[in-house]
């Protein structure tokens, strides 16, 4: 065990720095503002620090470590050149308050990304400012709100979400002050149009939905759903978490959506970094464009003076939309993440569709392989498809309900068993509409061999007896962690001896 707070070296040990320009005694801090006790931080020399964090890294599982089929999260390979690009001084050492003429390169990339994202989603305008998918949702819903206020439609207070929606959808709409109407899905997990018809009305502001949905199914009635919502004057919001399944095959615009958020970190691969950063731009149709956060990037022909500073045929400028909602992040969003995703996009260009096709190919292949191997191993009675469908999209769900009933083996047990086999476990217990749910998303960057091996190993886990699985994992840095203990005996920071 390496613990950061056990490295208390001699006073002053740590990072060597140049001497200050003036001695501390000459600095004039108001007497009541002088720090009385420095933070009780540990003191590490560089070798100790490097070894501590290397030790920690070895106790962490990433895509680089192994297969990471975490449904909904799109854990695909992160090309390393993207890290090189994001650390170039022309982005790392850039301040968002620098004037436009000092940032033409960055602005041109922003413009290119706005343009590309609009094309891919069939939208008319894009802002790159929201820094995560959930913030994109909130931003779009705020734009809806201002749009309705602008039209004098203050009575539109309700946002409809299917019960299979990501938790962020209702949370984001509620943060913007909307009332949430949750509608049940059909037996097969798809949207129930009659349930939708029953709740829409004058008070409908919007419907938020992802397609393919969280069960990995394409919502075939989506155009009809859009019509139902539009007929009562509401707006359609596309949660882009699963956009990687359909890019280049269809678009939210074609399906009738008015706004969309992109999870750039999923669709275009910004490393997920243990929980972030992400990037959640939104795209909107023309009627919502005046409400986007400010600023977005526009371009025009350069003046004669500007010509020598141009990076191409245009001059790029920050533009404030006419009825902007203002800012959702203080600067211009996660520029570093946008850059990585730009680098990712450039590797595919017009062939982005191939990326989606392979995501869907791999998901369907893995689903097939799991059923094939389960039959061969005689464990096919222990799970069923989470949804009855011929084809899945980029992910699929399995229900371990039968295993639970027959053997007392839960989805969580299987997940822990998979950890022992050297995999990250799939998402479990989401969506809530599938009992003992396991949600599997292989992504396009896994080979057929990896998928075949995983399918076999998945079945090997199902062949284990219940007791073994209840005890799993046994080969990981720690075994099952007691979450109840954590909540009851809250220890959220290093306890010092005198506390």
């Amino acid at each position, binding site marked *: 065990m390496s613990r950061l707070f056990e490295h208390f070296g001699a006073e002053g040990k740590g990072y060597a720095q140049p001497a200050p320009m003036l001695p501390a005694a000459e600095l004039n801090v108001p007497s009541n503002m002088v720090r009385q006790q420095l933070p009780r931080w540990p003191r590490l020399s560089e070798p100790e620090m490097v070894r501590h964090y290397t030790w920690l890294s070895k106790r962490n599982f990433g895509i680089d470590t192994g297969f990471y089929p975490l449904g909904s999260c799109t854990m695909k390979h992160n090309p390393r050149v993207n890290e090189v690009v994001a650390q170039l001084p022309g982005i790392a050492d850039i301040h968002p308050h620098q004037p436009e003429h000092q940032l033409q390169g960055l602005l041109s990339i922003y413009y290119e990304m706005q343009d590309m994202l609009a094309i891919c989603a069939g939208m008319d305008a894009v802002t790159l400012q929201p820094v995560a998918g959930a913030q994109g949702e909130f931003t779009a819903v705020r734009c809806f709100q201002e749009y309705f206020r602008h039209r004098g439609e203050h009575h539109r207070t309700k946002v409809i979400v299917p019960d299979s929606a990501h*938790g962020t959808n209702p949370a984001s709409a509620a943060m913007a002050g909307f009332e949430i109407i949750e509608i049940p899905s059909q037996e097969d997990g798809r949207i129930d149009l009659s349930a939708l018809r029953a709740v829409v009305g004058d008070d409908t502001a919007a419907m938020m939905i992802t397609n393919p949905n969280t069960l990995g199914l394409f919502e075939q009635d989506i155009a009809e759903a859009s019509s139902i919502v539009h007929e009562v004057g509401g707006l359609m919001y596309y949660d882009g978490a699963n956009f990687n399944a359909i890019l280049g095959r269809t678009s939210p615009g074609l399906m009738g959506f008015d706004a969309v958020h992109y999870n750039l970190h999923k669709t275009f691969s910004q490393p997920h970094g243990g929980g972030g950063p992400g990037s959640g731009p939104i795209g909107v149709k023309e009627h919502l464009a005046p409400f986007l956060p400010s600023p977005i990037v526009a371009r025009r022909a350069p003046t004669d003076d500007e010509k020598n500073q141009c990076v191409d045929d245009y001059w790029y400028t920050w533009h404030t939309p006419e009825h902007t909602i203002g800012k959702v992040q203080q600067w211009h969003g996660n520029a570093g993440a946008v850059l990585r995703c730009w680098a990712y996009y450039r590797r595919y260009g017009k062939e982005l569709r191939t990326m989606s096709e392979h995501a869907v190919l791999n998901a369907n292949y893995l689903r097939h392989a799991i059923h094939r191997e389960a039959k061969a191993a005689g464990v096919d009675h222990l799970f069923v498809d989470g949804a009855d469908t011929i084809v899945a999209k980029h992910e699929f769900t399995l229900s371990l309900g039968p295993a639970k009933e027959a053997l007392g083996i839960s989805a969580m047990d299987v997940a822990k068993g998979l950890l022992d086999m050297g995999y990250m476990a799939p998402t479990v217990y989401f969506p809530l509409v599938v009992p003992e749910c396991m949600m599997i998303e292989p992504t396009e960057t896994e080979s057929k061999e990896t998928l075949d091996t995983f399918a076999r190993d998945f079945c090997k886990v199902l062949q284990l007896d219940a007791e073994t699985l209840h005890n799993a994992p046994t080969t990981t840095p720690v075994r099952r962690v007691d979450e109840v203990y954590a909540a009851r005996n809250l220890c959220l920071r290093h306890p010092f001896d005198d506390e």
Partner: protein
Amino acid sequence: MVDQLPNLGREEEMLKEMGVASIDALFADVPESVRMVGDLPLPDAQSEEELLADAKRLLGANLALGDQPSFLGAGLYRNFVPSCVFQLVTRGEFLTSYTPYQPEVSQGMLQAMWEFQSLISELIAMPITNLSLYDGSTAAAEALTCAVRVHNRKAEQKDTVYISELTPPDRISVIHNYCQGAGINVEMLRHDENGCINLEDVQRARGSCAVYVEQPNPLGIIDGGYPSLKEIIGETTALIVGVQPVSLGLLEAPGNYGADIVIGEGQPLGSPITGGGPLYGIFGCTQPYLRLMPGRIVGRSIDVDGKEAYCLTLSTREQHIRRHRATSNICTNETLIALMGAMHMSLLGPEGLEQLAVRNMAACTQLKRLLAGVEGVTLPYDGQSHFNEFVVELPASTSACLAYLEANGVVGGFDVSNWYADKTNQMLVTVTDQTSQRDLDRLVECLDAWTQEVSA
């Protein structure tokens, strides 16, 4: 593209095995009426080499601050980040992992984030810290909505918060967006001519849900009035203080002068400015706010063998469980950047932090002294203490001054008229640990020459 897809060229084999006729058949469930026809109107795919060449050309056209003496700050600061931070944070096990839903194989990041919470708790003197919000502005906004959740029931001024009028307008805009959904009324607190908060005006905030101020304030001033704030506003109004974390090597931690919630832009510890993101928002609070606070929290626990282990805790506040009743919609946060912060803090140690703060404030003090000798330039808040930035009043417009400086190879400070339209001649000048004596001399020399030019 070819190098990113392992199954390229094996589609037939896989489809045949599945008994599916074609890739198109996998998309048969997409109704014809919504299918995209034809190729995406986008350029050809690029190899890594071509991409890198384009990236270098385009980003090379930006003016990187390290290339010239620069004095731009106003919320984001160019501090040095030690080399090991970049080396370690790009280890694939950290870089390519995600939210630790499976704690058994995520102990590394969980422990690192628990240590981050411990480091930040010590820094700001708060018992509870989450593992980051998006940035300082969203942390401020979430702090205000959190305070309303906690205090609104008993508040005399319901759904009302007070923020310093000096809060940067872009940050106020974020606050407005977050507050308006919850129906929160945002009032402004006045400042005196000396740039410090008007303590009498703060009386108005009694009975409201929260007061938000920043230390140092956006004019760079270390406001000595803050220790009186908590007493003025009372127990049932949250005191929220926004901090520049490096300053806390010299300045008292807000937890020690009555703050209930402390937020901050974490960037100066561990991260380059990166065009304004990704950054990381600091959020710490006292016990009464714990169960209504936003963001992920790591707790120390044990595994079934009684071995020390870490996991996410108090998740029932969060969107994936509580849905529309969650305390925030945040899901993806800024863990990796917070990790960079933790690494930087571990290397600095307590005395290293103090020295970093001293270096910042020493350069600032030195520059103030030097500018006193430049005729035509005045310091409107000269009597105050400044940590690493301060306002100068120029004899002509700031935009003209900035153009002159740029022509002479200096990136000047922030044009205050971007915040307050009538302050056309004010510039907020910032130094960091990266500012050298030569940089200061160059700025002073240029300002001297420019003021002579404009007064001639």
